[in-house]
């Protein structure tokens, strides 16, 4: 961004100024960055993946980072979003936009069901119930081969062209594809930012801080949790739907619990409970994996080690640690 200042001001002051600016206009900042993002990436498909998984992680972070509920079942919402979007297009020939809508709605409904059952439990049991229910969703879709293609995955999702008023955009063109998906992610991020700044945003933080007190203050803890759960599910569903459009297939792995694990990793890597964290996490995780994979066959070991390193030394995550450092710098003055 505004690099020239750097020479005039001390790094700390510069960082602080920039940091305040970024925090104040966080949506604007992240969108501005994502606008130029493809240029930094080795290839567009990866950039699109980062958009999509960034959104997935943001949705997950709403529950994990801001409400303090660690779900191991979020793959269910990514998957349901993907599959329902795909099924609507492949089996019923729906318009992609409608299909995407269906994907989000279905993911939200899955969120209502799973959330309603899961929020009755707490701590590690919450994580395990979400895991178990998500696995059941996995097998349900695995079995419904006629609709989902089972293990083979759902194929034949095609969005050749997109009409925007008078113009038609070629969705097969990676750049176009990136910016079309960008629009949806942008909208979602704006929504999340508003949500966090809203009164309800305060409520969920209160619930995370102290359920007993939140209830004593007159807030219905269970209902608030459920509402966040569903919103989180909807966001992940949107990510899933976009992924179906992006890959033109829906792999069964998108429902697998390892996919849920990935959301946790991204969130933690970037910094849970921060607005940018999940995106940073997704970007670093996927880029790292991509690059390491091209460098060595032993990517799993390297990524695992890096991950442990972060858990041990940067528990606040990349962005989270940065936030802390800058704040300390601010207080130091």
């Amino acid at each position, binding site marked *: 961004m505004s*690099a020239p200042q750097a020479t005039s001001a001390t790094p700390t002051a510069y*960082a602080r100024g920039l940091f305040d600016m970024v925090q104040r206009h966080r949506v604007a900042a992240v969108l501005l960055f994502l606008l130029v993002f493809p240029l930094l990436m080795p290839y567009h498909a990866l950039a699109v993946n980062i958009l999509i998984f960034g959104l997935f992680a943001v949705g997950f972070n709403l529950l994990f980072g801001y409400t303090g509920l660690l779900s191991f079942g979020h793959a269910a919402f990514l998957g349901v979003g993907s599959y329902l979007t795909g099924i609507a297009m492949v089996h019923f020939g729906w318009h992609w936009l409608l299909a995407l809508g269906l994907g989000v709605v279905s993911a939200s409904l899955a969120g209502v069901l799973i959330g309603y059952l899961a929020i009755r439990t707490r701590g590690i049991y919450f994580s395990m119930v979400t895991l178990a229910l998500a696995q059941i969703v996995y097998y349900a879709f695995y079995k419904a*081969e006629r609709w989902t293609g089972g293990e083979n995955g759902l194929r034949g999702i095609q969005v050749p062209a997109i009409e925007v008023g008078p113009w038609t955009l070629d969705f097969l063109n990676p750049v176009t594809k990136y910016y079309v998906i960008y629009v949806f992610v942008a909208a979602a991020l704006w929504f999340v930012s508003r949500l966090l700044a809203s009164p309800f945003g305060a409520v969920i933080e209160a619930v995370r801080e102290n359920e007993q007190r939140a209830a004593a203050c007159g807030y219905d803890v269970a209902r608030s949790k459920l509402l966040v759960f569903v919103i989180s599910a909807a966001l992940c569903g949107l990510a899933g739907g976009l992924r179906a459009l992006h890959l*033109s297939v829906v792999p069964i*792995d998108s429902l697998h619990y390892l996919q849920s694990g990935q959301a946790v990793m991204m969130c933690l890597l970037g910094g849970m409970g921060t607005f940018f964290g999940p995106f940073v996490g997704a970007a670093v995780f996927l*880029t790292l994996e991509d690059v390491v994979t091209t460098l060595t066959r032993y990517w*799993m070991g390297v990524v695992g080690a890096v991950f442990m390193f972060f858990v041990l030394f940067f528990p606040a995550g990349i962005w989270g640690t940065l936030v802390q450092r800058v704040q300390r710098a601010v207080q130091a003055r």
Partner: protein
Amino acid sequence: MSHLPQSKSRRQLIVGGAAVAAAPALFSIARAQPAAIKIGFPVPLTGPFSAEAQDQVRAAELAVKEWNAAGGHKGQKCELLVRDTKLNSGEAATRTLELIEKDKVNFVVGSLSAATQLSINAVTRERKVLFNSISQSDTINEAKDWSLYTFHEALNPHLTAGAVARYAFPKFGKRIAYLTADYAYGHEMVRGFQRAGQAMGAQTVADIRHPLGAADYSAFLPRIQALKPDVLVLCNFGRDLVNSAKQATDFGLKQGTKIIAPVLLYTSRVAGGPDAFEGILGGTSYYWGMEDKIPSAKKFNDAFRKAYGGAVPSDYGALGYAGILSVLQAVKNADATDSQRVAIALRQLKYDWYKGPQFYRKCDHQSVQSVVIVESKSKNMKDKNDVFNVLAIEDANEKNLRSCEEMGHKVS
């Protein structure tokens, strides 16, 4: 976050930063002179089938080396771009997009597993890029997934299973039990056996579906034990086969029941050891031991041994070799490098790269080829590579495939 490297907290960003920075450089190395014909080669270098995949790469590189050594096409050399699918369809699709969009490959050859080949095909088909799949599946040739740009070098379950059935059922009996991995590929295998079985009056006493990738099969075995079938068919693949075979042996099923498998993988037999596979027979697209019967096999083996210090090619490895050579031959024949014209040339191709005469069926681009029936050795093996006896070779015959109509193609 373009400003971050300037901020004080540089250290936390090393990883991400390095990655972002390294990536473009790294890829520009991979980029070669514009003249080259680029073939993308997405295979699962990591994960359960990495052994097979790495052998596929070795064989494919051998094919490229030979072709380039022979002068390529009018001086145009071929370049192989290997990518890791991690045996994950999503990753496979992403990598294929990378190959097409960034590396601008002319063709894609590769895949291992039904799911990854179908997702690769979904991407290539939509972008009209020629894809030659070297992994087994019946689905990819069906009208629903097929396209002019979709070719299938590998055997398919129907053909393999059929061949094994035609060989084994008459010898070992007509009461057949199936233990099947519960996914399309497994079901296709069973269908293959049952079709061939009908002709000779074989009867299915049970078709038990087990979850894909299960580690323990003991829970399915007592029932089979009680049924006392003549033949137990293990319709699963790789490690599932090793596990189920091993455990079937432990349950003493081999007394009175012949255990057969549609596909005996060379690599998983080596990994699983002789005990697990003792006396089990099955089919394969290729076994190096057939070199004494088939000249082209001898030629291929020798080249492979020479290139890789005496190692012999595995079945899936050999497919990598053939998959590349076919496409490159078609480039020569078509005198072109665009997918459409190369596809047309491929449809006409008659070839014998490594296992006797082959050709692609017009309606669905399935490579019509021979099937090798082998039995696992447990005694008097010459060396660690000597794991199978070749019992029979069923010659290439279009009749053994499902009809074009059945595949949903209108006959052209």
